């Protein structure tokens, strides 16, 4: 299967160029038991962009993320990932495509019965990567998230923040072209949240990976939009008097409410929005 993934994945990656949006939704709708969750959603995420998805609880943020990974299928509309239409794709091809997508789940979703090393190396083991190479890459990924010491621990032995960091390590182990973060700071204390946001930022600014970040914590969203990762200083604010005027140009916002998109634009546009609902939400 490893070979199949590599082959199918390579083919997928070769077919799209830098101009093709990494994620593209066209008129996507989905309902659960007659209750509409998303209605005619259309948007695109360009290569290297980070899209922060905001909205009240239950507005369909996590559903949108699962749709982007093919874990849910829409009732109507098209979803293109790396230019490939995934709603009509065969399951095997979809599994191959996912080799290029990392996902961090809301509650980490680590496999409880295997240790941290096997959790992080899960994808590598599936791809039959030699054991030594897999181990080295796991160590590297765990160093990236600052958890090299936890390699032999089991998920139940870890704190919520540590689990979330292991989940990030598992998502980035094979340098994906797209990362989907589903509330990576949900349920964590502010200090741990900042550590997680710094990791998201580090992945954005060091690896330039395209990502969609779902969050309901505005302070995390704005930290991500107004700071940049620096190898020496760590997380540092972007200069307000510089060319980017205090915000990261590649980081955009999208807000959902009642199944529809109520805002899609830059940090500046969001902050200066005159829409009363948006103003109230971000105040």
């Amino acid at each position, binding site marked *: *299967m490893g070979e199949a*993934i590599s082959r199918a994945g390579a083919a997928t990656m070769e077919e799209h160029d830098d101009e093709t949006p990494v994620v593209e939704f066209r008129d996507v709708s989905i309902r659960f038991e007659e209750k509409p969750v998303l209605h005619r959603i259309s948007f695109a995420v360009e290569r290297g962009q980070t899209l922060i998805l905001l909205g009240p609880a239950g507005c369909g943020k996590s559903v949108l993320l*699962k749709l982007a*990974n093919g*874990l849910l299928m829409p009732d109507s509309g098209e979803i293109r990932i790396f230019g490939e239409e995934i709603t009509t794709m065969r*399951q095997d091809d979809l*599994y*191959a495509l*996912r*080799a290029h*997508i990392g*996902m961090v*789940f*809301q*509650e980490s*979703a*680590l*496999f*409880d019965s295997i240790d941290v090393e096997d959790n992080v190396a*899960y*994808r590598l083991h*599936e791809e039959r990567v030699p054991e030594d190479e897999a181990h080295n890459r796991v160590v590297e990924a765990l160093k990236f998230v600052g958890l090299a010491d936890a390699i032999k621990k089991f998920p139940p032995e870890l704190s919520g923040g540590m689990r979330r960091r292991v989940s990030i390590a*598992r998502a980035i182990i094979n340098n994906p072209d797209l990362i989907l973060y589903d509330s990576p700071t949900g349920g964590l204390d502010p200090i741990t949240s900042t550590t997680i946001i710094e990791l998201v930022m580090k992945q954005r600014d060091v690896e330039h990976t395209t990502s969609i970040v779902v969050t309901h914590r505005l302070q995390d969203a704005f930290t991500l939009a107004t700071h940049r990762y620096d190898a020496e200083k760590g997380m540092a604010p972007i200069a307000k008097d510089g060319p980017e005027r205090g915000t990261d140009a590649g980081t955009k916002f999208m807000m959902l409410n009642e199944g529809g998109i109520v805002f899609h634009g830059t940090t500046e546009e969001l902050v200066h929005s005159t829409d009363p609902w948006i103003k109230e939400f971000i105040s």
Partner: protein
Amino acid sequence: MALLSPEEYLKKQIASVQEYSILTGTAIADIFTRPRYWADIFTQMDSIGVGSMPIIVLTGFFTGCVLALQSVTALQEFGAVSMTGSLVSLSMVKELGPVLTGLMVSGRNAAGMASELGSMKVTEQIDAMRALGTDPVRKLVTPRLVATVFMLFFLTIVADAFGIAGGALVAIYLLGLNGATYLHDSYRGLVYGDVVQGLTKPLFSGFIIATVGCYFGMKTSGGTQGVGRATTQAVVVSSVFIIVVDLLVTRAMIGIFGS
């Protein structure tokens, strides 16, 4: 729980049968294509087969004992106490061995599968597996199916053997029968058709235990309460299925081999 209209209830039941059929069909098809998760198959064989040995040995042994004790009262009336061995072995091999083994393993493993997969489902581990490019049916269901069918066959043989041994112990030490006569009678009472019938049933029971256990596990929703519900449903449904299929297989075998 909200009351459903008969139409909605029927639709739900048909949808469940459809989901179960798709899951089962996919799990069987995955046996014949790569990748195959051999390590998971062996782990499940150990858990289902070796792990179930103590309860199967005890159940088989004491069922054989009580069968000998109960049957001797009836046989005495006809002056046929010497037929105890034959009665015990026929009952164990054709019926009690396969059915009791199926029911015991169902209680232990269908519940285990439903709760394990159910917990994985509600904590998004199944979604995580799919997101990591692994087909959960191939990785979780197929190994359990192969392991249960394979191991239940041998567990039934163990249950039969310990049942006959239990019957022998009671017959010799409590009823004062001759040991050699008992064992000879047990052997002589069995014909080819009986053994085939007794060893066909666990193949069906194993299939039911694994598919029903995994089905309820994979469709779990509603947090920890949902896991509990899935576990109960898995045991109840698989136990009933085992008994119903036992009747059907028995009827089919009588048709093939005669009584």
